[in-house]
């Protein structure tokens, strides 16, 4: 009995240390929180008419250009974003073919994870001593990122989100990711990669904002490393923005796809 009591007393300082806020204890910036969530509007009441608005500029809502208008949203968004991965000339034809057939070839269209870096910044971060957890609300996915100085795992299979290790550099969390499978794309236009892809994500906290970028190296196919356009995420302060469970992904559409329309 006495031994048990002594053990409990000895444990007290260790527990206290573990509960001390990280910023003070280890000089790490604090990334805990829900990031980039837009507040949800109130739910429509039963019996209330509701319009689910998707403005398509220049498209007659009762005309025959509605689906083309939906496709154009994405085409226009991409055209307006000049920051694209730069492939070696010998792979440009492959990129074009994959893009042209994206409607049937993109693994993410069949409920597979978009993977790193296409899945973007996490929607919630949980930071504990020696480890950061990224949570992705849209897909119920998570990533465990050790920050205790250990090296990459040598015993894991290649995966959609890869093997991540993290480190803190001032107000920046740097996540180094390797060991990917090649069943994901970098984006919607045929941007394939190999299993040799190496990604470095950088999350920099400044006040209530985190800036997220990912730099992709894949020297066998990319002409040079590609860095995503920086994205700024605001810290959510509302409890109502807590992540909800996302409905599962169930693909019913594949048997009905009859053309290669692309968006």
């Amino acid at each position: 009995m006495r031994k048990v009591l002594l053990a409990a007393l000895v444990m007290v300082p260790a527990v206290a240390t573990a509960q001390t806020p990280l910023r003070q204890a280890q000089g790490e910036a604090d990334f805990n929180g829900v990031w980039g969530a837009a507040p949800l509007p109130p739910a429509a009441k039963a019996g209330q008419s509701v319009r689910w608005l998707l403005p398509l500029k220049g498209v007659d809502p009762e005309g025959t250009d509605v689906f083309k208008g939906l496709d154009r949203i994405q085409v226009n968004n991409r055209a307006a974003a000049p920051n694209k991965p730069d492939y070696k000339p010998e792979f440009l034809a492959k990129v074009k073919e994959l893009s042209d057939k994206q409607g049937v070839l993109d693994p993410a269209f069949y409920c597979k994870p978009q993977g790193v870096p296409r899945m973007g910044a996490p929607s919630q971060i949980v930071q504990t001593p020696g480890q950061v957890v990224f949570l992705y609300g849209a897909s119920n996915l998570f990533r465990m990122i050790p920050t205790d100085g250990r090296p990459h795992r040598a015993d894991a299979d290649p995966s959609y989100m890869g093997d991540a290790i993290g480190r803190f550099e001032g107000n920046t969390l740097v996540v180094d990711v390797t060991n990917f499978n090649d069943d994901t794309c970098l984006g919607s236009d045929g941007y394939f990669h190999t299993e040799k892809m190496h990604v470095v994500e950088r999350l920099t906290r400044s006040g209530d904002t985190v800036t997220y970028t990912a730099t992709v190296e894949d020297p066998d196919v990319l002409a040079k490393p590609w860095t995503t356009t920086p994205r700024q995420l605001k810290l959510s302060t509302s409890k109502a923005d807590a992540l909800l469970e996302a409905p599962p992904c169930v693909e019913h559409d594949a048997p009905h796809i009859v053309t290669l329309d692309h968006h």
Partner: protein
Amino acid sequence: MVKRFAVALAIAGVVGGTSVLAHHSFAAEFDINKPVTLQGVVTKVEWVNPHVYVYLDVKDANGKVTNWALSSLSPGAARRAGVTRANFGQGQTVTIAGYHAKDSSNFAFMRKMTFADGHSVELWLGDDEARK
């Protein structure tokens, strides 16, 4: 205007790094030139990604019942527009306007669900100023 755009962005796949579930073009599946109007009882609301599905028992003039599937946008996009699963009329008799699948199966894209009391849930795609 800001709110409208928030919803528009929700279906646009990866926009500025926001990750949502990706899916193919609706034009690959549905024929905008084949509008359909179906009346029947909602047998099931399948609240799944990437598209919400509604199933409808439609009775023809001879009393034969055919179950139709109606595809829509994502549950996340619906919720961001204030539309929840409860708004989709499980068990109720409704009229659905949409576009028929190009493969002519009992499958369509749902544009508007109108209930017996006249209220409706409508996916409003377009630009009022562009009406012809």
